[in-house]
């Protein structure tokens, strides 16, 4: 028996003092604040950092050693990547690097605007549908109808009705994404309004608008935020597809989709024209999805960490 334990109480005969055991559970440091949240959720941190970088690239596009992305230089067509043309030039001699960097603006604008608009519209529709019984069946049948059309086809059809512009792209992708969001919100609202704390609030004399504002809305935000990131990622992909098939942004505005479309015919001989915008698209979508996955895990109420 080691004599590391000193006790004033004498040990009765036949008994021994147990040894001090090492702590199996090391103390957990509680991290607070935004930085603490990011350290606890490295997925969100990595995705967020990538996304921030891309936003900065989009904002400061003209200052990042770019030239006019629409400037033609027929003499310097299809140059491979070099010190002068980092990503090479395309079939019309335009600088692919500048086009890709400026294309970030379109993708991010479309992704974020669609996420924002579809989330707000879906939230409003979902709340009405979850609370107003007679409206629910009508709204949800319309949403079912919209959902039965693949979002890309719906967006193509809507683009066919209008002129190609960034605003119209945003509108048509938003319309295609609304059903998914409103369905989610409706489901959450239907389950929340059965919660005893909602009944208790009714018994406490709280009026319906206040119940929605105080008790329903704040609790739908977590799943909604996660859904918004997925909407954002899918909107970027749909935008690229629309531009790729020529139904999206007009050719005068460089977007990753139309850079790839223009490089498509040449991809076997000059693969870099398609490669760089595709890589940027993949990284952007990955960043958004990382943020979404990280938030989903962090906001899961079943693992109520430090709310």
């Amino acid at each position, binding site marked *: 028996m080691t004599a590391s334990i000193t006790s004033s109480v004498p040990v009765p005969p036949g008994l021994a003092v147990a040894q001090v055991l090492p702590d199996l559970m090391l103390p957990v440091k509680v991290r607070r604040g935004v930085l603490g949240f990011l350290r606890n959720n490295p997925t969100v941190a990595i995705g967020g950092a990538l996304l921030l970088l891309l936003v900065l690239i989009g904002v400061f596009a003209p200052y990042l050693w770019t030239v006019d992305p629409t400037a033609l230089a027929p003499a310097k067509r299809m140059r491979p990547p070099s010190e002068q043309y980092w990503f090479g030039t395309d079939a019309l001699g335009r600088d692919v690097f500048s086009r890709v960097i400026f294309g970030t603006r379109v993708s991010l604008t479309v992704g974020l605007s669609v996420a924002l608009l579809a989330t707000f519209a879906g939230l409003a529709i979902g709340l009405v549908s979850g609370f107003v019984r007679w409206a629910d069946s009508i709204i949800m049948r319309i949403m079912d109808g919209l959902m039965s059309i693949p979002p890309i086809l719906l967006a193509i059809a809507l683009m066919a009705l209008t002129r190609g512009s960034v605003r119209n792209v945003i509108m048509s992708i938003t319309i295609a994404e609304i059903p998914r969001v409103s369905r989610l919100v409706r489901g959450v609202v239907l389950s929340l309004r059965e*919660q*005893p*704390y909602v*009944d*208790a*609030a*009714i*018994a*406490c*004399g*709280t*009026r319906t608008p206040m119940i929605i504002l*105080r*008790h329903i809305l*704040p*609790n739908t935000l977590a799943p909604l935020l996660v859904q918004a990131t997925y909407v954002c990622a899918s909107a970027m992909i749909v935008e690229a597809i629309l531009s790729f098939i020529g139904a999206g942004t007009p050719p005068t505005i460089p977007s990753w989709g139309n850079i790839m479309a223009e490089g498509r015919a040449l991809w076997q001989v000059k693969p870099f024209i398609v490669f760089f915008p595709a890589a940027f698209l993949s990284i952007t979508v990955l960043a958004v999805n990382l943020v979404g996955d990280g938030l989903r895990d962090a906001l899961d*109420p079943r693992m*109520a960490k430090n*709310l």
Partner: protein
Amino acid sequence: MNAPLLQVNDLKKHFPIRGNLFSRGGGGRVYAVDGVSFEIARGETLSLVGESGCGKSTVGRAILRLNDVTAGQVVLDGQRIDTLSPDRLRRIRRRMQVVFQDPFSSLNPRLRVRDILAEPIRNFGLARSSAELEEKVAALMDTVRLPRDALSRRPHEFSGGQRQRICIARALAAEPDLIVCDEAVSALDVSVKAQIVNLLQDLQREFGLALLFISHDLAIVEHMTHRVAVMYLGKIVEMAPRHQIFAAPRHPYTRALLSAVPVPDPTARRTPMILKGDVPSPINPPRGCRFHTRCPYVFERCRTDEPELRQRVEGQWAACHLESLPEDAGKGVPAE
């Protein structure tokens, strides 16, 4: 003072079976509560007992007007509340509050305790200034014996028993006359259960509260109630003061329920009265006495005539054709 605080007259709550696009649900109904009448006096505890699905909670929800009633009357202090307009109902809600079973979902996880307790006070205009509001909220924490500095915490930082205290504090915040405790202690473990029951009893004495105590735990009920109403399949089958019902039940179902209560004595030898079969469906309740499919003393009349709830001895009402239950040693419980 002699007029009861709450009167429930022939309360019925039927839920239509909703169909979908392709079937209309057959127009069937779930007879969840089918003609329930009782009274609660000021400062009295009435326990509503019965097995799962007998309509206990539906009665509670109907009294609180969380569900509309199908038929019957709910009278609070001489005023019918089942027909009130939404605006007047909102005002009368102050007098009836509720504590639910699950302390984890009864509190909005996003709100701080202070805001949870302030909600009814603000809604009913019970505080004139924010200082008075703060004072009331702090006093409520004292009343339910929680530390005042817990006010700025959120519900997930509390244990089940503490959360139930917050729920009780929220109910008290409205300064009610009646609190419906819908299985309020069923989700708690035994020692916490005892604390909450004692707290409720203290509060009842202090504020003259009437309690409608909905429970399936007869041991707790015996400890704290004044009167007991036993429900079976949407109806009250027996109602009596506590001593009478626990000593001499007059309805076979009550007897079966009481014999199912565990006795904390391993040497006690009993032959529990075990009922056959399951509770019939409330969609299609049996004709005659609703209990006849499982009653050990069933006879011909039970299958055709529905027994009325009749007063047998002073204060003890039972709905059974038998004037007194047989002393059946084989099936029944040994007499006390």
